[in-house]
């Protein structure tokens, strides 16, 4: 952008940079955890019988690192960039932003250490040790206050679609965090706790990751394509559909469980309702890309956005099929669900975040990306890896589900899963290597920016 001075004071670039750079480190930790855990299934676990790296603990580190270290840090950084740009107001306080950045990431490191030391919490997607939960809640609230302030200042005018999504997500996130981490842990035992815990499992993805991810695409795609989003009306339906249906999906995580059956039916109906949301969002994104297809496909950032959108479509079609009771009776408890969640958090939201990282990092560092070909390799290996993993785990899920139903001895179903677990480890390796390439690329870009800092000083800081 032309006026770099006022620009740089509007957006807290330092915070954007810090969150994004640390997220790149954490995506490596996350895939390393996942890869290590996958080795247990094929009997090649590198830390056999080592207490601190027991596979169960490593699995908790894997999921916590994906959600709270990688995706959250990337999304925080991207929001620090998007919100001031979209509202034309600064965040409440950059200093507060830095305090949150440091404390939050120290809490993440403490989470990793404490989980490995055996203090994981017994709630799915909320394995952060109990002692840390209140602190994380406090700092999430501070982050929300910091980020909602510019939207509050701009409240008199209608917002762009991205701001609706972010604002709603920022209100939802702290409420959902407190609900999911405290009620099932201290108040409601058994099925009541499970009903609330399933709400947390779903809302973490549905009300934190999904809306902010969607906001990211609605912002970046028009910028990269240099044209507005295809339809304003569709984006309106998509947002309000999400706000209405997503919070009510929860119980579909525990179908056929002792949770009251009426609430399971409600969860299923709301999950099917999500389709309205998904098709409008996907159509809007694809139609925008299709308007200039040949140019668009040359850009790796748009490839990431587009592939992520296709993955989004596939997972959501899958979702409507798998939440039905007949399909659940077979695929629940199997690797099918594992495949589904990898597709969602890696194939969709990580891909969208990668597009943003490749868009922002060179602009934040005033340096061209170190290697276009590494970037391209990162894209293709990640894509290949996640599609192989998805196909493999869905197939594994069907094999396991039908063998269980047909009363094969349990251990036979483990033996039958072995080939699928090998393929899963292989696809995981592709994804792992791809993230190493991302790390190298970002590190080298950062190093180059250090080496040539004075020469680039007068280049524009950011903007497209």
């Amino acid at each position, binding site marked *: 952008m032309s006026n770099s001075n006022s620009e740089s004071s509007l957006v807290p670039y330092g915070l954007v940079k810090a969150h994004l750079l640390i997220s790149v480190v954490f995506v490596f930790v996350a895939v390393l955890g996942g890869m290590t855990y996958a080795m247990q299934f094929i*009997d090649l*676990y590198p830390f*056999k*019988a080592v*207490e601190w790296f027991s596979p*169960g*603990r490593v*699995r*908790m580190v894997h999921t916590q690192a994906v959600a709270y270290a990688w995706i959250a840090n990337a999304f925080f950084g991207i929001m620090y960039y998007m919100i001031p740009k979209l509202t034309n107001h600064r965040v409440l306080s950059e200093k507060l932003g830095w305090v949150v950045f440091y404390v939050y990431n120290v809490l993440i490191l403490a989470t990793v250490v404490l989980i490995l030391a*055996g*203090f*994981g919490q*017994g709630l*799915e997607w909320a394995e952060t040790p109990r002692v840390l939960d209140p602190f994380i809640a406090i700092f999430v609230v501070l982050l929300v206050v910091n980020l909602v302030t510019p939207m509050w200042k701009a*409240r008199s005018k*209608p*917002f762009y679609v991205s701001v609706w999504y972010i*604002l709603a997500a920022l*209100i*939802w996130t702290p409420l959902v965090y407190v609900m999911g981490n405290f009620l099932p*842990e201290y108040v*409601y*035992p*058994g*099925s*009541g*706790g499970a*009903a*609330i815990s399933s*709400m947390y499992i779903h809302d973490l993805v549905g*009300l934190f990751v999904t809306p902010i991810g969607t906001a990211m695409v609605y912002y970046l795609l028009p910028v990269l394509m240099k044209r507005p989003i295809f339809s304003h*009306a569709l984006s309106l339906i998509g947002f*309000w559909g999400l*706000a*209405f249906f997503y*919070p009510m999906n929860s*119980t579909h995580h*525990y179908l*056929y*469980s*002792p949770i*009251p059956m009426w*609430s399971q039916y*409600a*969860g299923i109906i709301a999950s099917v309702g999500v389709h309205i949301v998904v098709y409008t969002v996907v159509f809007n994104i694809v139609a925008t890309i299709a308007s200039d297809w040949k140019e668009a496909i040359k850009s790796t950032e748009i490839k990431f956005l587009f592939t992520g959108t296709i993955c989004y479509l596939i997972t959501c079609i899958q979702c409507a099929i798998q939440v039905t009771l007949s399909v*659940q*009776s*077979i695929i*629940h*408890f*199997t690797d099918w669900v*594992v495949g589904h969640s990898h597709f969602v958090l890696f194939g969709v939201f990580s891909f969208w975040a990668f597009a943003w990282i490749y868009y922002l990092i060179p602009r934040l560092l005033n340096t061209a990306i170190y290697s276009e070909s590494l970037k391209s390799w990162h894209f293709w290996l990640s894509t290949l890896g996640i599609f192989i993993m998805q196909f493999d785990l869905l197939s594994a899920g069907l094999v396991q*589900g039908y063998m*269980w*139903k047909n*009363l094969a*001895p*349990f*251990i036979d179903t483990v*033996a039958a899963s072995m080939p699928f677990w090998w393929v899963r480890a292989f696809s995981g390796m592709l994804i792992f290597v791809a993230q190493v390439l991302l790390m190298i690329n970002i590190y080298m870009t950062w190093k180059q920016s250090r080496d040539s800092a004075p020469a680039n000083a007068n280049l524009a800081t950011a903007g497209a």
Partner: protein
Amino acid sequence: MASKSQKYEKFSAVFLLAGLFFLIVAFLILGLAPATQVSNIPDKVGMPTEIPGDFQKYYSSLEQYHEGLLNGRDVYISEACWHCHSQYVRPVSNETLRYGPVSQPGEYQNKLNLPQLFGTRRVGPDLSRESGKRPNDWHFVHLYNPKWVVPQSVMPQYPWYFETKKVKINDGKDERLEITPKQEAIDVVAYLQWLGLHVSSVTHKYYDNDAIVMPPRN
């Protein structure tokens, strides 16, 4: 210019209607309502009123046994056992033949189920009807090294819950390893043998033949 839809594009609508109202409604309907409904169901299980015979040598008082069950549950959580073993039997997919009676809400209104450990994946079998299916010794060996009893198992080993020492035998000519469970291992096995204790008259079925005990290799 101001179209009708524009009020849904402003701070107040997004904040109040989407951010607060829809979420709270969903929480009341699908979180609090079922939670309140089941919390009125009386606890069918309760804490055991006597120490099961096999555990009388490990626990001297009932309080100690209850303490042990809670500790065992905590180890079960910290090792993330619940990520690979579910704790509810569904009424479908022939699960009643494999595991036992379908789970009822009243079975989970117990302090050992706070937090609930339903689980969402079965890398290993469901454990809600585990009580009495296998002997304690099987569980100790299985915890120390699962492959010694189930060669194809992918379960991790937990040797840090055991004391290992070398003992001389045959007048000091030979050595052998003596492995004894620490308190944590005893607590975990007590917890596992508690899971489904209230229905454990339902003995295990033919389909649990993975429980056949194999001789240790060493």
